[in-house]
């Protein structure tokens, strides 16, 4: 089953990011000025319903970040000659059938036949030209023409009912948990939630969760027998591709900020706190970087990387590693082009903070610069950092698609929404049109970006002191 664990560069960073966020969560829980705004976030209905959707994406992304080399059966030659360089993730394992069931070429969503006519030899020796049956999609149907609609309806109903059942069960667990902590118990808690009277809008959570689960189980049920979103040119399942792209999108959105944060925070605070030549130098650095149009800087850097990679091809063990390194590099270079905004904001804020009375008092007491920055400045700019990170996320996801389309984004072999759209461009010119790849990429991307946008609005409203006072 599971072979050796493979930790790609981005995987390591993902788990670093995860532990940093958990650590920050624990830290923030003890600080009222950070905890308060988050309380506002989870009390807003928009905040919690987008959180449910985002956590679905994050779960898929995390599952897809645990990679290992599958060990094969023992009848392989034991001399170690046959070495698989294939790397699969835990997520691949979970959706194994989607990965394995490859058709010959294009097929429409939920189709039972290929999208193009082929010459087929009949049992009696004659050759006719018709749409051949798919190898996997709807293969269980005896007569697709007659059974197809009924089968789809049946599977849909089963899926929707399963989703409802699961959400019903989880709602009851929630009521029990909520009820356990107070006197009224289960019934009281259930009544409060269902009437929408609870402090955290649990009812909204449950509604979103129910919808999500119903869609999820519907998709699982249908994709077990059909290709839910069709297949692409080489017959790979488009639904699987769209799901795999989630990791790429999330990584671009989060790792980029992780990469740029230390530099932006350190330099921004230093510029604002120390002033003088340090300020001049840092300002000069970011103005220079800023004055190059971002796309061009990225293009130039990625071109250089491509040359480096093809000249040192032997340094990379597998295609996956190669693609992974390129993704990491893309995050770094995107970070280089996007840290300047945050740096400028932090510089301004640090300038204001250093004139504040308690900082002045600390200076008068002879506290060291390092201590002052760590104790007084940094904690007071954290909300700006958080707002920027959340606001930047959706822009970066969108940027990935555009960059991949221009061929300076992620590796063409990597699953990403940009690459899906890129290949869909040629398919749109085809007659008849192959529209499902494009649509799948768009739906998945749109859902993520929209929920991220709505969520970031809630976070900004909660954290921005200016907005809070005017409310």
């Amino acid at each position, binding site marked *: 089953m599971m072979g050796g664990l493979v930790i790609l560069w981005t995987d390591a960073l993902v788990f670093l990011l995860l532990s940093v966020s958990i650590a920050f969560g624990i830290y923030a829980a003890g600080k009222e000025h950070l905890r308060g705004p988050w309380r506002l976030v989870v009390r807003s209905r928009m905040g919690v319903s987008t959180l449910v959707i985002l956590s679905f994406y994050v779960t898929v992304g995390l599952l897809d970040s645990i990679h290992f080399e599958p060990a094969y059966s023992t009848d392989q030659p034991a001399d170690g000659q046959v070495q698989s360089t294939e790397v699969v993730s835990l997520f691949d394992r979970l959706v194994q059938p989607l990965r394995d069931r490859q058709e010959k070429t294009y097929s429409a969503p939920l189709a039972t036949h290929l999208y193009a006519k082929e010459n087929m030899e009949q049992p009696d020796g004659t050759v006719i030209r018709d749409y051949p049956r798919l190898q996997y999609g709807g293969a269980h149907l005896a007569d697709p023409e007659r059974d197809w609609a009924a089968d789809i309806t049946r599977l849909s109903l089963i899926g929707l009912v399963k989703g409802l059942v699961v959400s019903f069960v989880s709602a009851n667990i929630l009521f029990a948990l909520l009820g356990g902590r107070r006197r009224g118990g289960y019934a009281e808690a259930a009544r409060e939630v269902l009437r929408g009277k609870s402090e955290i809008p649990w009812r909204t959570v449950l509604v979103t969760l129910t919808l999500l689960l119903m869609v999820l189980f519907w998709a699982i049920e249908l994709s077990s027998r059909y290709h839910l979103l069709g297949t692409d040119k080489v017959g790979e399942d488009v639904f699987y591709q769209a799901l795999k792209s989630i990791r790429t999108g999330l990584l671009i959105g989060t790792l980029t900020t992780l990469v740029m944060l230390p530099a932006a925070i350190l330099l921004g605070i230093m510029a604002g706190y120390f002033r003088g030549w340090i300020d001049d130098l840092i300002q*000069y*650095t970011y*103005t*220079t*970087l*800023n*004055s*190059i*149009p971002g*796309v*061009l*800087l990225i*293009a*130039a*850097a990625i*071109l*250089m990387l*491509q*040359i*480096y990679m*093809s*000249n040192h091809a032997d340094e990379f063990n597998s295609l996956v590693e190669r693609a992974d390194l390129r993704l990491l590099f893309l995050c770094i270079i995107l970070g280089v082009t996007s840290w300047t905004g945050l740096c400028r904001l932090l510089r301004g804020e640090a300038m204001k903070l250093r004139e504040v009375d308690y900082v002045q008092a600390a200076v008068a007491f002879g506290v060291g610069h390092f201590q002052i920055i760590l104790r007084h400045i940094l904690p007071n700019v954290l909300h700006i950092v958080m707002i920027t990170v959340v606001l930047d996320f*959706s822009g970066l996801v*969108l940027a990935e*698609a*555009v960059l991949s*389309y*221009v*061929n*300076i984004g992620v590796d063409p072999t990597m699953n990403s*929404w940009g690459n899906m*759209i890129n290949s*869909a*461009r040629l398919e*749109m010119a085809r007659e008849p*049109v192959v529209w499902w790849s*494009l649509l799948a990429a*768009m739906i998945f*991307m*749109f859902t993520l*970006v*929209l929920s991220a*946008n*709505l969520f970031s*609005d809630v976070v900004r409203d909660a954290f921005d002191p200016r907005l809070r006072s*005017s409310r």
Partner: protein
Amino acid sequence: MIAYIIRRILYAIPILIGVNILTFVLFFVVNSPDDMARMNLGMKRVTPEAIETWKAERGYDKPLLFNSASQGVGQLTDTIFFQKSLKLFQFDFGTSDSDRDIGYDISQRMWPSLAIAVPVLIIGLLVNITYALLIAFFRATYIDIWSVVICVVMMSISSLFYIIGGQYLVSKLLHLVPISGYDTGFAAVKFLILPVLIGVVGGIGSGTRWYRTLFLEEINRDYVRTARAKGLSEGIVLFRHVLKNAMIPILTGVVVVLPLLFMGSLITESFFGIPGLGSYTIDAINRQDFAIVRAMVFLGSVLYIIGLLLTDISYTLVDPRVRLS
């Protein structure tokens, strides 16, 4: 005033030098000209002679920074840094790797880019400001809330989808305008309608939201309250007072993008087959023509700095307080 402008121009010089050094390092130090030659000639089985010829034809056979083989000033001028990087300051972009004069190409291709970018900017501004003023007029009603929701939804759609969707709907299904292409003179108009339309529509979401916050911030000011107290109607308050005072941030936002309009949009131009600077850059990236990419990076930063300069100047013209400092 003049002293101020001169100071700003002088301030731009070190930045341009910084950009220049950065591109030099990126293009010549990270990967040597040998690597580029090998890349261009095909990776495997390239003879050293072929690499030398390739480099000599394009002037990449000189040392990077210091030429010990030359005499006097030649030791510094007869180098790649001087010939390829410093020449950019005279807007001498040299020839591309496929032997075309980059400066000439740029002068030819900036017009189609402008033909799209300028209408998009002007129509977009008009649409966004009108819409945002309308929302500000109906603030805190259902119209306001739903408009903001629509804006967020529009912001969340990838620009690629606007282009592909628009092309499919307008050109392929309705046959209103050609899918892509370009023509000289007025015949180009029919090719320009769709990209301009898509550019405007794609920008409505973020644009309107931005102007809405601007106007709402302005509406809470004291002078607006005074104007209302005088008994002016809400329409007059919005259009005469709020719009006028919000002009400063709007103007600065516009001025900064004015020079960058030359650069065109990479995506739009390559999708619609418009021979502007955007598609020029994309083609160069795909062909790995470093001379062009280098030239565009430098041109882009020059234009950006000009934009910043214009912003500062326009500030001093519009806002008298700035001149005092």
